[in-house]
């Protein structure tokens, strides 16, 4: 399990990263924690001639909660998310989701930037970021731009990011109301068979707003506008939940793989979404 040879770079600033990406084009790739990339390189499913390690690049590592907005630098790890008291207070769904990713060792290395930029439908943060309506900041040779998480994913491993761009941060408005991240997996450390991210706001007895996103049930994460809308104005009773689940089913396209046939995944999707809605509503 030895990867193909590569040249290794560890630039100290973003200018250095962009210059290397421009110089080497398709042959260069950035690496954050390496816990998706290195396994692919060991299997020779990725051969990268020029590997640019982001670990020393300044300005990618902060967690800020300010004026109702939360910003995570791309190199913030899942372990740091779990450990952050400020995040737990401002957006507890992040900790609930991060605790369900991989295992302790992987979480010390895996970063939010790597997780959302990777484009693997199995990653948990992309769906979570769509639920939160997050914005990704990308920096490239022509400066920086922002892309909504909900329009970032085109297909498996195909995202809106250009090869010469680096994702520098993820930001979103502090969510309000109840939340839940519910994931069905074969064993601890496994990617999702199905997962649901839910945020719900309550007004009296009635649902004022809802946001629902699903993971590993299509070749991209799925933010289901129809499922979210099915809850609004209801008391989130059994009928409303069933309507949301039915709407979600129309938006996903699971395919058979080693986690099971498509029909089983639809069953798991319905179960995780029902549980997530109930838990989020209880907390709202």
């Amino acid at each position, binding site marked *: 399990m030895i990867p193909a040879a590569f040249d*290794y770079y560890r630039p100290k600033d973003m200018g250095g990263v962009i210059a290397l990406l421009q110089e080497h084009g398709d042959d260069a790739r950035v690496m954050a924690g390496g816990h998706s990339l*290195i*396994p692919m390189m060991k299997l020779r499913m990725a051969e990268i001639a020029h590997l640019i390690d982001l670990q020393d690049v300044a300005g990618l590592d902060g967690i800020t909660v300010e004026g109702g907005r939360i910003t995570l630098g791309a190199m913030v790890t899942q372990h740091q998310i779990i450990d952050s008291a400020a995040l737990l207070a401002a957006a507890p769904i992040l900790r609930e989701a991060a605790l369900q990713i991989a295992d302790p*060792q992987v979480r*010390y*290395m895996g970063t939010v930037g790597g997780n959302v930029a990777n484009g693997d439908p199995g990653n948990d943060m992309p769906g979570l970021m769509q639920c939160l309506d997050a914005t990704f900041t990308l920096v490239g040779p022509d400066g920086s731009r922002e892309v909504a998480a909900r329009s970032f994913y085109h297909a498996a491993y195909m995202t809106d990011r250009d090869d010469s761009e680096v994702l520098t941060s993820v930001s979103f408005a502090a969510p309000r109301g109840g939340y839940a991240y519910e994931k069905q997996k074969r064993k601890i450390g496994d990617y999702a068979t199905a997962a649901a991210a839910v945020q719900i706001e309550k007004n009296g007895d009635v649902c004022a707003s809802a946001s629902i996103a699903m993971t590993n049930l299509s070749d991209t994460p799925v933010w289901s506008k129809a499922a979210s809308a099915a809850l609004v104005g209801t008391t989130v009773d059994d009928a409303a939940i069933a309507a949301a689940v039915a709407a979600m089913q129309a938006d996903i396209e699971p395919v058979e793989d080693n986690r099971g046939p498509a029909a089983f995944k639809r069953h798991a999707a319905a179960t995780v979404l029902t549980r997530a809605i109930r838990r989020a509503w209880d907390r709202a």
Partner: protein
Amino acid sequence: MPKKMHIELTVNGKSHEFLAEPRELLIHTLRERLNLTGPHIGCETSHCGACTVIVNGKSVKSCTMFVAQANGADLTTIEGLGTPDAPHVLQTAFREHHGLQCGFCTPGMITRASKLLEENPNPTEEEIRFGMAGNLCRCTGYQNIVKSILAAASELNAAKEAAE
């Protein structure tokens, strides 16, 4: 020949300098170059935790890190935690509570557990199971591993209290 780079590592308090290809995996550096054969290769695919070492204060699967990434880092392996004459509290606890059978997973288990107890000196059984989830054991059924870590935690806490 692929290009080699100059690497500096501090492992168990000792510094090492050598030339290596950046693609060399840290587990191979430790076992084959530095002769530290405590960290084991179980799966080589980031799943079993037998290769766990501490890199700059993080529990890391050393089969999933390039030596180039670790350049400049401070590492601890099982060899740095204790010796046969002066074993670490966890090593003694694993022996007393039958926390091992074949012993293959044990260096990774103990190295990971040492970090877990540093971050959480009073873990519940559930917290131990969750915090050790990246380490697999094919022999023990985990029961006695959990017991060993609980015993080591109370031992360490008692020693701390006695010192105060």
